[in-house]
């Protein structure tokens, strides 16, 4: 028998809120399940044909699997598949926080020139052998990319703090950065030898096949080090969505939060670009998917953004292998081709306008 509520005793807001939180947890679980599926598909697909069973077998019991399968799975496919997940997480988290602190739906590492800056840094090393840091010889290309990316992120931060700068002007400044670094990159390409030119072009297209275990370890370390710092600031970052004045009146130190977040973002955006080249749209689309599914409470928005970004990049990796069997397309081309129409459809179909 149903319980009879007393007249006038309506459901309290907190019951609805709890239901909302449960729904969000379920959605995050679904995103995670989708990611596991694409991750396994990513492992199973490739020029050499294995069944999912063989791949899982080689993963769980590498000693028992035949040597070729074990080598392909562990040394070739697993680094690439894991890199897709990690880079997707990092770029999407970076995009999510850039959109939050710059209060701009178009902010992402790709649209505001951080990726272009990283490409330029990488090209400096590839074409002229320029080292921006006196150490880390084995990693000259990624280190250069990282330094330029961090410099671009700081430049955006400083410009966005200047007097009279509005949300729109930050995007315009970002676009100016994109064009500047692209022009500089073209200049480098003009001077480059044929061999260096090929390397630069491959870099700017973005490719997960550059993944190795040491690079994975560094990327993982960056994600593991920065994400908890962002998560700890979840309430303050969410408050930023109400505007600077409101956030400040709630006791948020707006200036400091912005600076700290931008530093974490430049790490998150630069390291993946440094290792796998330019991969666009993940940092832009991932957060938007998360926002539409989950809302903007950072306790759910941040993990959902990361999962959505990882899912997108992992799925793109699968697609890059399926287009022409036996060939792996550069992932950056795939993300742009999938990302743009997907993004347009999201924007046009969303009933609730988020910006």
């Amino acid at each position, binding site marked *: 028998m149903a319980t009879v509520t007393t007249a006038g005793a*309506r459901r*309290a*807001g*907190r019951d*609805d*809120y*709890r239901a*909302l939180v449960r729904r969000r947890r379920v959605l995050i679980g679904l995103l995670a399940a989708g990611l596991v599926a694409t991750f396994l598909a990513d492992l199973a697909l490739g020029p050499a044909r294995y069944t999912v069973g063989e791949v899982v077998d080689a993963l769980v019991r590498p000693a028992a699997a035949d040597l070729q399968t074990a080598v392909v799975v562990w040394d070739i496919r697993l680094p690439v598949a894991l890199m897709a997940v990690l880079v997707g997480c990092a770029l999407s988290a970076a995009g999510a926080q850039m959109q939050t602190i710059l209060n701009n739906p178009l902010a992402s590492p790709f649209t505001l020139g951080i990726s272009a800056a990283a490409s330029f840094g990488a090209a400096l090393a590839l074409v002229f052998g320029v080292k921006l840091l006196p150490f880390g010889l084995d990693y000259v290309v990624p280190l250069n990319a990282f330094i330029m990316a961090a410099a671009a992120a700081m430049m955006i931060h400083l410009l966005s703090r200047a007097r009279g700068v509005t949300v729109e002007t930050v995007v315009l400044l970002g676009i100016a950065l994109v064009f500047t670094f692209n022009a500089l990159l073209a200049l480098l390409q003009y001077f480059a030898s044929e061999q260096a030119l090929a390397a630069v072009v491959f870099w700017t297209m973005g490719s997960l096949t550059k993944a190795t275990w040491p690079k994975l370890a560094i990327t993982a370390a960056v994600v593991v080090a920065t994400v908890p710092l962002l998560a*700890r600031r*979840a*309430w*303050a970052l*969410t*408050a930023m*969505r*109400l*505007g600077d*004045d*409101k956030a*400040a*009146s*709630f*006791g*948020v130190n707006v200036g400091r939060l912005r600076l700290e977040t931008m530093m974490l973002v430049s790490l998150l955006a630069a390291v993946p670009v440094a290792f796998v080249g330019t991969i666009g749209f993940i940092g832009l689309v991932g957060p938007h998917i998360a*926002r*539409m599914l989950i*809302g*903007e*409470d950072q306790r759910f928005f941040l993990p959902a953004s990361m999962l959505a970004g990882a899912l997108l990049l992992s799925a793109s990796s699968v697609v890059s292998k399926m287009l022409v069997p036996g060939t792996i397309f550069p992932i950056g081309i795939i993300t742009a081709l999938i990302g743009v129409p997907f993004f347009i459809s999201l924007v046009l179909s969303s009933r*609730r*306008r*988020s*910006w």
Partner: protein
Amino acid sequence: MVTLRLVDVGVRYGRRPVLSGITTPEIAGGTVTAVIGPNATGKSSLFRRIAGLLEGPGEVRVSDPRPDAVCYMPQDTAANTVLTVYESVLLARKQRTGWSVAERDLVAVDAALDRLRIRDLAFRGLGELSGGQRQLVSLAQTIVREPSVVLLDEPTSALDLHRQIEVVDLIRSLARERGLCALVALHDLALASRLADGVIVLSDGRMHACGPAREVITDHMLRTVYRVDGRVSQAPSGRLAIEIHGALDAA
């Protein structure tokens, strides 16, 4: 009960002083003080200074030492966010009460929404609300933090007449029932006289007058502070009636 006292308080932006020498008698909890004055005379700056968001000379003495004792409610601005009303009120409270959401946080949010009679809006997006509804949400965000001093910056600016009276009466009753010391910046002098136990008049970054509405809102004040020609009289109800004849030419 809480008390607030300002001693020679000022605000500087860079080297330029925008406010100086504000000294008030002790303002007791349970009362409402209207802060009036023309545009750009430092009402918002004064509130930010009291709330600790701006630095400056002088001393703000609040008898309640809790970090969230003084809550400032800035002027309403539109926010393009998918955050719901419920989330935004919870958010205001969660800046200081730890990372995870406790039952008492949710109870406090429900109580704040009920007190302002906006429970029906709880799961609407902030971006979908009218200006008046947003101001009520702002008030909920302020009281959910359980302050003892509230600084409300033009809480009625986007409201129609009916809502203005409702909100003003609500602020009065909140101040009485919770022993709040409420400072409210207002443009409408009639509303200020209805709302406030005391009035602070700011003019050109200084305090022009401070006292009961009847003594502070005068023909002379209208001329010198607002540069309008008008007549203030006491209606049979005891409330002030303000009749404006016209603007005076700039001196």
